[in-house]
């Protein structure tokens, strides 16, 4: 089964500028079922001689039955694209775009609260289920391997790191989910943990957190109450000094709870196996699964 994306995925890509086109080509080459492309002024053309272009998301959904959307549009237009995809009724919307103003995400989250769409991102690497050749995002497909470990992470490149370590230790992935590094983001650790727990193809879970916010604590609480599968966690930023902004907005320590040591403590208390260093994620999971 995997989670979020699989053989049922019918993907709509929005925003095919330079980077968007590059990523969309790789997504298509990997084998993802891409059914529609949306970019202003290209209605009637085809992306890679294959995927029809539309001017409007609703129109594209009507005509292709797309159920999943990915957004590559520039940050100033990302909020509008998310709302357009939500309004068009897509079940899953993945916003890759980096640099979306926080207040825009605040508004988006309030807007979609009672709507059926699930949003991942913004500023995330997206989702990839290796067993189904289903990639909705920018996770490099050459590093993944089908298997039974679910990966969920706030950080992009650290997701790749975790995947590589798993593969290095002989373990594949059910689904890899990058939930995004912005302080306000759609799908949270807890949401993904719930999906992994219910997924028959997932046997264990890697959770990669970082400093800032208290989402890892919420995840720990959820794990304690609802997750029976083994969870290995790593928290990046143990050496980060308080108050310094470490590259993206999510990674800023704003209080004691936001510190790596606090997060690690809470996760350990919830029965989570801690990878003491981000270099030891694969080894720890190998140890846990025996």
């Amino acid at each position, binding site marked *: 089964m995997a989670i979020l994306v699989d053989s049922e995925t019918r993907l709509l890509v929005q925003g095919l500028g330079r980077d968007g086109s590059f990523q969309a080509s790789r997504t298509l080459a990997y084998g993802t079922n891409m059914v529609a492309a949306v970019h202003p002024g290209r209605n009637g053309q085809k992306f890679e001689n294959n995927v029809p272009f539309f001017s409007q998301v609703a129109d594209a959904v009507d005509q292709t039955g797309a159920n999943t959307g990915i957004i590559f549009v520039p940050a*100033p237009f990302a909020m509008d694209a998310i709302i357009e995809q939500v309004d068009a009724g897509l079940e899953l919307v993945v916003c890759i775009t980096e640099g979306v103003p926080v207040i825009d995400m605040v508004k988006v989250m*309030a807007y979609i609260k009672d709507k059926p769409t699930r949003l991942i991102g913004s500023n995330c690497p997206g989702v990839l289920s290796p067993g189904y050749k289903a990639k909705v995002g920018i996770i490099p497909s050459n590093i993944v391997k089908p298997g039974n470990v679910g990966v969920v992470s706030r950080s992009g490149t650290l997701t790749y790191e975790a995947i590589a370590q798993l593969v290095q230790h002989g373990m594949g992935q059910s689904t890899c989910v990058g939930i995004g590094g912005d*302080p*306000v983001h759609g799908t949270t650790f807890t949401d993904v943990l719930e999906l992994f727990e219910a997924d028959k193809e997932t046997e264990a879970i890697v959770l*990669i957190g970082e400093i800032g916010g208290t989402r890892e604590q919420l995840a720990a609480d959820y794990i304690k109450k609802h997750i029976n599968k083994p969870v290995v966690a*790593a928290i990046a930023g*143990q050496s980060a000094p308080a108050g310094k902004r*470490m*590259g993206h907005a999510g*990674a800023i320590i704003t209080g004691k709870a936001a510190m790596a040591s606090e997060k690690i403590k809470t996760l350990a208390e919830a029965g989570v196996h801690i990878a003491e260093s981000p270099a030891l994620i694969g080894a720890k999971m190998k140890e846990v699964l025996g």
Partner: protein
Amino acid sequence: MNIHEYQAKEIFEKFGVPTPNSGVASTAEEAIEIADRIGGRVVVKAQVHAGGRGKAGGVKLVESSKQAGQLTEELIGTHLVTNQTGPTGVPIEKVMIAETLDIKDELYLSIVIDGDLGAPVVMASSEGGMDIEEVAATTPEKIFRVIADPLIGLSPYHARDLAIALEVPSESIRATTKLIIDLYKVFIENDCSLVEVNPLVVTKDNAIVALDAKINLEDDALFRHPELANLIDPNQLDPLEQRAYKSDLAYVKLSGGRVGCMVNGAGLAMATMDITKNAGADPANFLDIGGSANQERIEEAFKIIVDDTDVEIVLVNLFAGIARSDVVAAGIVAAAAETAAKMPLVVSMRGTNAKEGIEILTDSDLDITVVTDLAGAADVLQQKLLELERSN
């Protein structure tokens, strides 16, 4: 993005927030003129991007315009070192000359977005003039907070609730309520990441005045505010940070370390710093080249890292998704050729075109140790640091 107090004050005034009578001076003459206009007894405040100005001698009360001029002359052109700056401090190029008020009470007010709640939060405290983190730690019951609705905004009754909680005089409740509503407008309409007033004062005649004005602008939203983007003062940045800013690179200087870190991605940046620390050394800086840097930016990135005199060894940790490893490698080799610094490099390079990148590095005459993963990087780094210590 930080802006100066006097710039934040101008924004406050535009939104109707009461502030003290003041002016900005960069010479003694200007300072005297402003102080004379205000009436002699004034506060002189160094305009720098750093907190802790008061304890560091950057905020002083003077009794005459003459003294204001003298103090201004003393301050301008020097560097102010506070507990929030590095040891070299930040340059003082302007001072604010402000009227003094008869203060009855000092309060605290700030607005930020709480990521976990997904909403703006207005925080207030009856303990103004103090470090708010300290108040939060010692007397949390003196901090009041209301959550604004993300779409409706801050309801006036919420602002009034705060005014009541702050126990301002009853005749000042209306003005305090209005001030909080206006500050919320400042926050939203300028896409701020922080609006802070510390202290917000109640004067002897029960007026409410923002004695201080602090605004941080959200970098990601500056495209909506070109006029605000112009307020940047690059001189307040460390010279290397200035260079990184110009090349749109995320560079952070850290104190006490020896390892320069070049990475892609914030999570990997932190992980890299963590393994650096695990290896027994502290990072001197880290520089995130981001997703799609070209060779010129890589060259500049590498130069910024090695131009940091604290750096004795460089750790490159790349997991290329959008970025191309060969481009990064070529950039490093080109930059290293141009710099005098011949220090050891520990390199982990994976993802897109990693093989080609590693070849370029190993073919160069740099002192390079290639590793294949994070764990390996930690081991080699530890070993290299030991070697460095032995050779010292």
